[in-house]
């Protein structure tokens, strides 16, 4: 997918005035976080499970080569094949080769962020193979030729009316004449259309939430059951997964699953959690004849062992974006590439470069909610700060910001001058803003005041002054 992360500011300007998007985000902001909160309350062990989940992923990363080898040995022993793909191009080529070998014309796809990352659909289409997305949200955005705007709810930016229009436009040629308006009808129509597509597909492609080294199983979590149809009906099943998905044992999977569903959708357990292990066995009445696992690196191995390694713990639950005030204001598309939200702000510069995506780690209030809800305790604000530092070191930061920082540094390293300047600014702002308590416009702060008012300082002086008084009172 072509990144527009460099045009982040323009993307944001558009997102803020998009009424449909804002309507959808209003639902998202309450729904996901409230359901997660309730699920967490129902499980007293939740915080301890988060610690354990973090430790499991850290352990797996520290021995990643061994666990990958163990996983591979298991899959191979069962008659499956493991393919190693250092780059996105390699992964696309491997998948295309398998599809061609199978004589595939259509592919049933279950939502996979890795497939988005390597732009697999475009590659297959360019070579005459039709990928059909089967997750309802992913299917909707495929019809609209849009990228996902959320890692677990790809069509969360759309309203029901937009979905109705999309189905009406695309399903007419399949004999569905009426424009449906009710949700159950829209779901039923998609079910009918996609059921046929499942039956004609030669290959099923899924991602994986985890790869279990102990058993050689790839694990999938869905609520619709589309991944299970993708890995049961077609003759060939291809799993595409990045290397950091491997974990040691089934018991470790249990711990990670307990935090995944609750963090993602606030469910106790997703409707379908499936362990796939190799191709159809002798005597089986259904299931694929071939089972392939494509292991993708795409830069991840270079993150190991460094100060950004924590990002590889991510289990793609989406909690960080569900709780992010920035995501909640602008939605996922504004981030400009595959992964939105706080985790996107950390992953994207790694995967496509800080020169392209340097704006993303700057799009944070550093409120820390993302870290406070992350099921594997990724220190997202810290990682975003790392990227800001690298951007600065590489002289990619805009001149105005650099000059501003230089001025700030000049003041901040001269305490008396700093106190005098901030005290003066505070008094001036308080004086002129006294009437209505806020500013609709301020010199040099146009970008702020264009969308919201700047609060005028309250009585009591600067933070330094208040701190001094308070400490004096406390003694």
């Amino acid at each position, binding site marked *: 997918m072509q990144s527009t992360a460099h045009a982040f500011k323009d993307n944001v300007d558009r997102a803020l005035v998009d009424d449909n998007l804002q309507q959808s985000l209003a639902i998202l902001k309450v729904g996901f976080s409230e359901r997660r909160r309730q699920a967490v309350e129902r499980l007293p062990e939740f915080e301890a499970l988060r610690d354990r989940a973090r430790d499991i992923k850290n352990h797996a990363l520290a021995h990643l080569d061994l666990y990958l080898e163990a996983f591979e040995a298991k899959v191979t022993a069962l008659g499956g094949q493991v393919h190693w793909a250092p780059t996105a191009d390699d992964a696309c080529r491997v998948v295309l080769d398998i599809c061609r070998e199978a004589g595939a014309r259509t592919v049933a796809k279950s939502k996979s962020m890795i497939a988005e990352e390597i732009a697999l659909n475009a590659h297959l289409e360019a070579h005459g193979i039709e990928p059909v997305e089967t997750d309802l949200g992913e299917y909707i955005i495929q019809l609209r030729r849009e990228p996902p705007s959320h890692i677990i709810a790809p*069509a969360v930016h759309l309203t029901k009316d937009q979905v109705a229009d999309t189905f009406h436009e695309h399903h007419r040629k399949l004999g569905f004449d009426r424009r449906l308006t009710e949700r159950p009808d829209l779901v039923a129509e998609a*079910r009918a259309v996609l059921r046929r597509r499942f039956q004609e597909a030669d290959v099923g492609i899924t991602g994986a939430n985890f790869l279990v080294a102990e058993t050689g199983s790839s694990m999938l979590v869905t609520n619709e059951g589309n991944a299970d149809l993708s890995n049961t009906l077609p003759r060939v099943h291809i799993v595409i997964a990045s290397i950091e998905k491997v974990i040691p*044992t089934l018991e470790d999977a249990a711990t990670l699953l307990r935090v995944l569903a609750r963090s993602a959708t606030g469910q106790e*357990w997703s409707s379908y959690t*499936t362990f796939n292990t190799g191709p159809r066995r002798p005597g*089986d009445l259904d299931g694929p004849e071939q089972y392939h696992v494509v292991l993708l690196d795409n830069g991840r191995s270079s993150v190991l*062992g460094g100060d950004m390694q924590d990002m590889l713990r991510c289990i793609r639950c989406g909690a960080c974006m569900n709780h992010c005030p920035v995501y909640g204001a602008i939605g996922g598309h504004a981030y400009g590439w595959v992964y939105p939200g706080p985790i996107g702000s950390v992953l994207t510069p790694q995967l496509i470069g800080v020169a392209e995506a340097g704006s993303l780690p700057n799009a944070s209030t550093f409120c820390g909610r993302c870290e406070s809800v992350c099921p594997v305790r990724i220190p997202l604000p810290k990682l975003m700060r790392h990227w800001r530092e690298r951007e600065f070191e590489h002289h990619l930061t805009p001149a105005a910001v650099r000059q501003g920082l230089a001025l700030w540094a000049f003041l901040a390293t001269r305490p008396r001058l700093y106190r005098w300047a901030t005290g003066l600014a505070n008094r001036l702002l308080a004086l002129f803003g006294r009437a209505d308590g806020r500013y609709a416009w301020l010199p040099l702060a146009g970008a702020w005041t264009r969308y919201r008012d700047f609060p005028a300082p309250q009585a009591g002086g600067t933070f330094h002054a208040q701190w001094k008084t308070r400490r004096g009172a406390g003694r």
Partner: protein
Amino acid sequence: MTAREQMLGAIRRSLRRGTQAGEARAAVEARLRRHPVNIVPARTAGTDEDRVRLFERWATFNQATVVRVGVADVPGAVVDYLAANNLPARVVMAPDAALDRYDWDGRPMLERRRGLPEDADRVAVTGALAGIAETGTLVFTSGAAHPTSLNLLPETHVVVLREADVVGPLEEVFARLRARYGEGGMPRTVNTVTGPSRTGDIEQQLELGAHGPRRLHIVLVRD
């Protein structure tokens, strides 16, 4: 150099070490062999009856329906459920010998076919390896006795589950899988299913029956 060597080499370089040997490798191998249990939620503690009640509670919480009956009443419970939901008394049933212990012939009006589901099949009847009380989840294993597509294609899935097969946490399912398929062994597919198929992809409102069954009914059998 193969892609495999390239990737494993890159991992080791980043971790600033060569191939692991000795103690580190032994620790990894031991973990795979011993698969230690992590943290198990306390909610599954209690008597057998507590566990069955907990299963029922969470299954219902997740929009499944549950009925508890004796062995003799299983076929009747299935017939009643179909009638109550205006469904035809015609089912496709898993070719599972474990289902033969119920007196289906005592209900001649219930039409049964065993094997893979076809497009016209609206109701599937299967057994289950286990029910997980922790979350009200059913566990299905693929094999000659239980094709996976029975769990997915018909719009109604009726599951006959023995109370003795209701376990506490997920970890007890792993123990059963290891007992049946050997250490480190698994069937092609293990489906853990919690309630009917669902989606929240249109305006985040819950809709049942996205791709899999719209209805999931569990007949819990006292032994």
